[in-house]
């Protein structure tokens, strides 16, 4: 019954029982460091170690964050930013996944399109915002385009590399069962690449928010990026840091949600 034992072991590994002692050992020390650093910040401001009108204590930032939440405007700004990020991200995902798979599987398209992609990829996205403002204006079209462009590359690159890394044995297996080209693509190659695609998508979730905020700072009339610039002009560092706090929390939450979806949808990820 050794085989059954082995099964039980792998099941146990997956369910990862979280005892409180484990939590104390793993997570807690990380949380402790954050608390320590925030306390240091609080003290440095309160006790005058850093003398500046623009170095508010943490407690004041938290109070500002609470006031922002009550006022509701920060949520509107966050929603505006997230909407742009999400639209750009969706467009980038579709383009990146489709092109990644198609280019990896078709020699003709690869020869045609890869040089173009390789030329555009090293361009720092922010650098093309000023010229694009002249062309696309300062509205959503510009910001969504920039978000999509920046998010496209990690998704495309990991998908493309993922397809290239699909083990030949899988393809040959499908061939010996006389599987058609189209079915090999969607029933063998595509699921085999899903873990790679997921890795690219996860990188892009962080990036799309970064670029959305950046584009709002350069050419904005709404969103967190614009809010940051506005509060900078108003010389309200407490509001600025509070807004950054909301961004950090959003990014963290998105990543956790993404990981949870990955665990459920791709249980074979990292297993072979």
């Amino acid at each position, binding site marked *: 019954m050794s085989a059954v034992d082995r099964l039980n072991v*792998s099941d146990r590994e997956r369910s990862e029982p979280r005892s409180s002692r484990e939590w104390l050992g793993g997570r807690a020390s990380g949380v402790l460091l954050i608390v320590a650093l925030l306390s240091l910040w609080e003290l440095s401001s309160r006790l005058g170690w850093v003398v500046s009108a623009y170095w508010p204590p943490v407690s004041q930032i938290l109070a500002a964050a609470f006031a922002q939440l009550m006022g509701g405007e920060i949520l509107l700004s966050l929603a505006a930013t997230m909407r742009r990020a999400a639209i750009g991200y969706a467009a980038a995902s579709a383009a990146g996944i489709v092109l990644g798979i198609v280019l990896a599987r078709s020699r003709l398209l690869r020869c045609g399109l890869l040089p173009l992609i390789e030329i555009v990829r090293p361009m720092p996205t922010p650098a093309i915002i000023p010229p694009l403002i002249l062309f696309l204006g300062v509205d959503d079209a510009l910001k969504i385009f920039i978000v999509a462009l920046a998010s496209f590359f990690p998704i495309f690159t990991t998908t493309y590399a993922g397809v290239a890394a699909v083990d030949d044995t899988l393809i040959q297996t499908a061939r*010996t069962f006389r599987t058609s080209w189209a079915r090999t693509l969607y029933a063998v190659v595509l699921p*085999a690449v*899903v873990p790679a695609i997921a890795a690219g998508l996860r990188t892009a979730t962080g990036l799309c928010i970064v670029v959305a905020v950046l584009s709002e700072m350069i050419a904005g009339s709404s969103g967190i990026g614009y809010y940051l610039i506005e509060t900078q002009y108003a010389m309200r560092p407490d509001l600025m840091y509070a807004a950054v706090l909301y961004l950090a929390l959003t990014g963290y939450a998105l990543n956790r949600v993404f990981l949870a979806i990955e665990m459920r949808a791709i249980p074979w990820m990292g297993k*072979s």
Partner: protein
Amino acid sequence: MSERLGFDHVTKVFEGQRGEADFVAFDDVTLQAGPSEFLAVVGPSGCGKSTLLRMAAGLVSPTAGKVLLGDQPVQEPPPGVIYLFQQYAKSLFAWRNVIDNVMFPLESAPRARRGELRRQCQDYLRQVGLAGFEEKYPWQLSGGMQQRVAIARALAANPRVLLLDEPFSAVDALTRMELQSLLLQLWERRRFTAILVTHDVEEAIFLADRVAVLSARPTALKEIIDVDLPRPRDQLATREHPRFLSLRHHITASLLGPNEKTNEHAALV
């Protein structure tokens, strides 16, 4: 259901890349496995045994000569010629559970027959000793069990010819013996033609009706040896049979070549 599979004066040359010399993998090999025969092919490692099977499966085409399935030349993977890969872990679909892996070759069948085919697949799983593991995923199984899934999947494809590419070389010795016995059981029941490529002389003798010995590069057929051991074969009785030992001696000596001393230690490759 079975079919004759033959290599008719097959030569395979791999073109050298960037000025390297061409590499002759096979030179004029003629070899045939009759219907329902179990043919084993042994040869030194790197002699291109897998290439031979890939040509039989229609995955690679010979440079000269013909691979014949019955009377038909093999050009692309023919129906009913199933390849069992050495790397079972890489040939199973990690995103499919056990039963869905076995179902894979049958999914082009009409939807109405799905239920019936699924029951069939469950029966194949029972035959390879994996009843009750239908919903597990490959990574939840041991190596030997994964290869059992691959065998069940091969059965589902209704093989006329089963090509076995060192299928048990990656599992431990005990599991290997279990799988060998399982394979013989299934072969005796289904009577497909089996061609096994291996570097394990004992495995070849234990399983096969005939053993073809290949020489090192460029690979040519050295000799074909009839395995006149009684069936059904038994892991203990067969391996202790005097004929088994003399066959092992003969084939191992043949593999090592005339220049090697054939003392028993050297013979245990």
